[in-house]
């Protein structure tokens, strides 16, 4: 059996059991404390696991898009599932790296690949408004003007999370920040 061959010789059993127990325990704890499982979901709450996203969450949750589109509907590709999770993992790893090393900017700005994804997602839902055959047939340059810029260049408030962009722009907004990682029973135990 495969598993049997991986096991240590019998007389090493005890130390190996404890050492690998520590390792697995730390790994599980890291997974739990970073809420890694949340990132598989589409919930906007997962994006405010990092508190620096609070202004973005606050502005979205008070915007006209709130009822229709969540973070991922705009910020990750929706053309196929592989593309979606590939992009998400890629962005997520960069974000966790920046957040962990405190490398975030005061005014967080979208990068070019992200901006392209957002633009495609605008069109995905608003195709009727953007691709109007009547206008295209009658207005000179309609296509060129449409394709030469992005929706949010003009629709800053609706699509762009308001006009101010700063970690400090919504300091008192109510945002579902991280729950306390310590389970209630343990907290109760410490209190009593």
């Amino acid at each position, binding site marked *: 059996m495969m598993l049997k061959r991986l096991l240590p010789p019998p007389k090493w059993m005890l130390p190996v059991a404890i050492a690998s127990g520590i390792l697995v325990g730390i790994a599980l704890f890291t997974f739990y404390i970073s809420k890694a499982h949340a990132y598989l979901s589409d919930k906007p709450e997962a994006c405010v696991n990092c508190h620096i996203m609070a202004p973005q969450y606050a502005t979205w949750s008070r915007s006209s898009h709130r009822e229709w589109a969540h973070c991922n509907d705009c910020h990750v590709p929706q053309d196929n599932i592989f593309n979606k999770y590939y992009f998400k993992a890629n962005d997520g790893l960069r974000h966790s790296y920046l957040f962990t090393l405190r490398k975030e900017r005061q005014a967080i700005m979208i990068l070019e690949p992200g901006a392209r994804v957002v633009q495609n997602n605008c069109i995905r839902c608003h195709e009727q408004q953007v691709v109007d055959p009547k206008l295209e047939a009658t207005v000179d340059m309609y296509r060129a003007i449409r394709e030469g810029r992005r929706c949010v260049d003009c629709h800053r408030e609706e699509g762009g999370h308001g006009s*101010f962009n700063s970690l400090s722009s919504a300091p008192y907004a109510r945002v579902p920040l991280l729950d306390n990682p310590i389970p209630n029973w343990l907290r109760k135990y410490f209190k009593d």
Partner: protein
Amino acid sequence: MNNKLKITEKRPWLAWVLFAATIVIVFLLGLLASTIVERRMEATFVNVPLVDIKSFEPRNEVWGQNFPRQFQSYYGTSDTTFRSKYNGNAMIDMLEEEPAMVVLWAGYAFSRDYSQGRGHYYAITDVHNTLRTGGPKTPDEGLQPSTCWTCKSPDVPRIMEQEGVTQFYTGTWARLGQEIVNPIGCADCHDEKTMNLRISRPALVEAFERRGRDITKAGYQEMRSLVCAQCHVEYYFNKNVAEGANYLTFPWDNGFSAETIAEYYDNIAFSDWTHALSKTPMLKAQHPDYEVYMTGIHATRGVSCADCHMPYISEGGQKFTDHKMQSPLNNIANSCQVCHREETSRLIQDVYDRQDRIVEIRRELENQLVSAHVEAKTAWDLGATEEQMKDILQGIRHAQWRWDYAAATHGGSFHSPVELGKTIANGISIAQETRIKLARLLAGLGHNKAVPFPDISTKEKAQEFIGLDMKTFRAEKEEFLKTMVPQWLKEAEKREASWERNQIN
């Protein structure tokens, strides 16, 4: 030991149990560690005041004990490494950059020494060092009045409280040397009990009153500019308030523009000095930063000084104001890009484009003015009468005032390029008119040809042209820095050591 190890040799299932138990224990230990970290985190959010800040406490370090983030960033004003295209926080010898200024200020202390200022941190050091304050040897002598200290230090409100405002404005600069030692800081803008912004200098309050406004009714966002407007403004010394007093006054009664301020000065027949070459009763613009900013688009849209020069920052989830007051060009990401989404290089280019254009026409006016002064001197030398020169001198006064209004304002070419464009255009037009009159007068006096433009290609040549003895100035300054200043600082140290410090934590 060997026996214990053998326990699992015989019962492999026990190894699995131990493995599982270790996982659980480590996980629980992790949770325990989290609670400890969490409790430790709480401490960073608790503001523990360490000292009781007394009213009129001038020492920034004492305030800094209670507000470490703000204080640390305030210390950033000691940075002198940033140089933008025209300004920055490095010390730039402006007379070296623009030797024509030496001629324009002939007969006035600015022709000796004029440098781009450094950060607030150096307010006291730089005013000690500049040749404009001369080298007083006793408290009763020297070039400048005590009023010159008004904007340099949080010691000023303290002394004003002790002596009274008019008394503070009376006497020489050297009189208060030992009293005023802490550089611009906390108490200049903050109330020591509530930390609210407050106005500590009477001149701004009085100027508001004369304009029919009560400054205590100003809202928070306006205060974020008004605390700066206590000093970053045009001012003059009114000698008619009390005997011997140089009463600091803002000439805002008719408005903020160069034209309305000139009208104000003409009405009271005020002049800062008489020009050494042309004998013109001149006006010196100080630094009408607030006035020019108020005419610009950012002010119109409600952006305050602090929004760009002291932007909000977040550090570990804590929001506070960056107290390193500086050029936003050194801080595009935290200032401009909060509202503007363009690339950093694009935004900087936008600023430089405006500065380049304003500087280009300002230099044109500068050269016109040098010619006008030299031509006026020639006219005097050829025997022109006061009656003949009256209009001409008025023209030089008005044209140079407009030039100085545009040159002395920091960042004005970005704050309000349109207003400054208009001001300089008016200045050029007045200077040209004046030079036409001068040409006619000179021709009448028998000098029907161009007056040669002096060689003022360097600061030294320009200073020699107006007859300045720089060696003497430098020597008396050196003497002053070696003898007076250490005395002042020693006295101050003794005084501050005698104040009790109320440590409460």
